[in-house]
């Protein structure tokens, strides 16, 4: 029996999954509270013991023991660019695609107070972009100097800007003893997005430095490798599931919604070209596999922010409970993130919160149509991806995975007749990540893509709206 152990060091839970590679089955999954502050391995061994109890897996020889991590705040990044709609946006997308939490974005010349803000955040990695190849060099060089001059900043810098400035940036950074990696420009030409090289470089830095900085090195004594941040694993899984591998077909264009305690992540794997005639595309081209993260939409740590973003009225309308009950619930779960809802009222309110999180996160992720009136009549401009035709919608994240009827929540991802300009999926098939294996399969995809794909197709449960 050839086995693999897949581990996800989460911010709240450490999840482990044991997979039989030969039979392509999930043997067991288990989870335990993460113990990042003390010794990360404690929580891991707790989960492992539970796993072994389940399936009679008494310290079996695992062929692979690989992990992803979003523990200790995840991979926290700052993106710096030149024009907000251009290289700043491109840098942000590269960081998100690499599975980072983007804690700040900066445009134009950095001021000393902005450098102060970056110092205060002490990011894991800074992504420095700006200028197309052969375009503006002054700003990115200024910004490199500003970052180099800071005695507090020791974060590695990934420079992915104007190639004509690359050598000078390297010199500036190296001379002040900073760790700098030069990679291809995230925007080599105007409106051309090239984020894969930056994503790869970010991942290299993650493997070399961040794993150790997060106290995960200890984990590597027992397991083979911490391969990537958890969101990158989920995006990896989504891409494999959509595209297929060799002769094994995928499910086609899809949208994954992951509602967590702190954030709601949305991943789409689709081209998103206009589906109707006479629509022109505007703005930066979209990555085929795109991830967005909503830091204000979460079930626990961000419950208060969710309430603020969505508004109490909409929540009252959606769950039927009154204002006081909702405020009380949000207060309670916000201060006590480990809380699982048992009574009917709090479950009802949790459902409404989750529905709003899905609705708002998907609305922000998908493209929009805007009508422009010209002397020749109305014309239509699309920004972002048209996902109306997407085949599959996949739901994951605690609140969805453990729900008896997740369609109630996932409905928020669907196209709304009253908002025809918001290009959400119209008639997708709905799949639920019942075994909570998506991140694990993104990891397994690194070593056994075909097996990972087959397991996903077997274990994602098709559900109906």
């Amino acid at each position, binding site marked *: 029996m050839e086995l693999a152990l897949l581990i996800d060091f989460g911010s709240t839970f450490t999840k482990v999954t044991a997979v039989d590679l030969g039979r392509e089955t999930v043997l067991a999954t288990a989870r335990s509270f993460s113990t990042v502050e003390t010794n990360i391995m404690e929580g891991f061994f707790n989960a492992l013991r539970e796993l072994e109890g389940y399936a009679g897996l008494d310290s079996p020889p695992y062929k692979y023991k690989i992990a992803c991590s979003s523990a200790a705040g995840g991979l926290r990044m700052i993106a710096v660019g030149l024009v907000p709609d251009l290289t700043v946006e491109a840098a942000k997308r590269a960081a998100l695609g690499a599975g980072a939490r983007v804690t700040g974005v900066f445009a134009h010349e950095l001021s000393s107070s902005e450098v102060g803000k970056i110092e205060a955040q002490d990011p894991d990695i800074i992504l420095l972009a*700006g200028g197309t190849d*052969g375009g503006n*060099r002054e700003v990115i060089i200024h910004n490199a100097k500003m970052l180099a001059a800071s005695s507090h900043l020791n974060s590695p810098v990934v420079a992915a800007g104007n190639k004509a400035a690359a050598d000078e940036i390297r010199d500036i950074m190296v001379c002040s003893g900073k760790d700098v990696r030069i990679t291809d420009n995230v925007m080599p030409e105007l*409106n051309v997005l090239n984020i894969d090289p930056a994503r790869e470089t970010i991942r290299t830095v993650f493997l070399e430095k961040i794993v150790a900085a997060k106290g995960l090195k200890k984990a590597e004594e027992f397991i083979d490798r911490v391969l990537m941040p958890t969101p990158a694993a989920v995006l990896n899984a989504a891409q494999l599931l959509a595209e297929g591998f060799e002769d094994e077909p995928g499910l086609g264009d899809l949208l994954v919604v992951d509602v967590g305690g702190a954030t709601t992540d949305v991943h789409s794997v689709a081209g998103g070209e206009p589906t109707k005639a006479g629509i022109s595309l505007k703005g930066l081209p979209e990555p085929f596999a795109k991830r967005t993260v909503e830091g204000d939409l979460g079930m626990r740590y961000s419950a208060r922010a969710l309430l603020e973003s969505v508004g109490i009225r909409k929540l009252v309308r959606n769950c039927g409970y009154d204002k006081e009950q909702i405020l009380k619930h949000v207060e309670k779960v916000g201060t006590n993130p480990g809380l699982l809802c048992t009574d009917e009222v709090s479950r009802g309110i949790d459902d409404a919160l989750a529905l709003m999180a899905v609705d708002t996160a998907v609305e922000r992720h998908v493209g929009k149509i805007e009508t422009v009136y010209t002397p020749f009549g109305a014309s239509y*401009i699309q920004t972002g991806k048209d996902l109306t035709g997407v085949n599959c919608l996949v739901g994951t994240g605690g609140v969805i995975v453990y729900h008896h009827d997740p369609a109630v929540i996932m409905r928020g991802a669907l196209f709304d007749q009253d908002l025809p300009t918001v290009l959400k999926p119209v008639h997708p098939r709905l799949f639920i990540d019942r075994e909570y294996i998506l991140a694990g399969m993104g990891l397994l995809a690194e070593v056994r893509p075909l097996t990972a794909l087959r397991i996903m197709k077997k274990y994602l449960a098709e559900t109906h709206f």
Partner: protein
Amino acid sequence: MGNLATVVLGVIGADVHAVGNRILAYALEQAGFKVINIGVLASQEEFVDAAIETGARALLVSSLYGHGEMDCRGLREKAVEAGIGSVLMYIGGNLVIGKREWKDVESTFIKMGFDRVYPPGTLPDDVIPQLRQDLGLT
């Protein structure tokens, strides 16, 4: 041609005339310019943003549907505000509707901050030498 200049080319406003834009892009490229073509339906902000990011030295604005005066007002001010106030700005096309004296039209756009204004029917060959001269490339 190591020191070619970068220029931003586009059709401003709600204007969708794409043919002349392509011809101009081709002619300018043949003449050795690096052309950043932002195409039709281009807003003022897109011209300015494109010029900042690419380090362009000129904005070449087309307008063929008669609303140029409305669409171009404030472009120079935006460029100044964005820190590229000295960028060279040309405009050409069917700039106004109705019968107005060319002198009038030209001065309207010069006052708006354009460096050169071209009437309908201008050929690229007339413009390119002037562009070279204004950019100090000859």
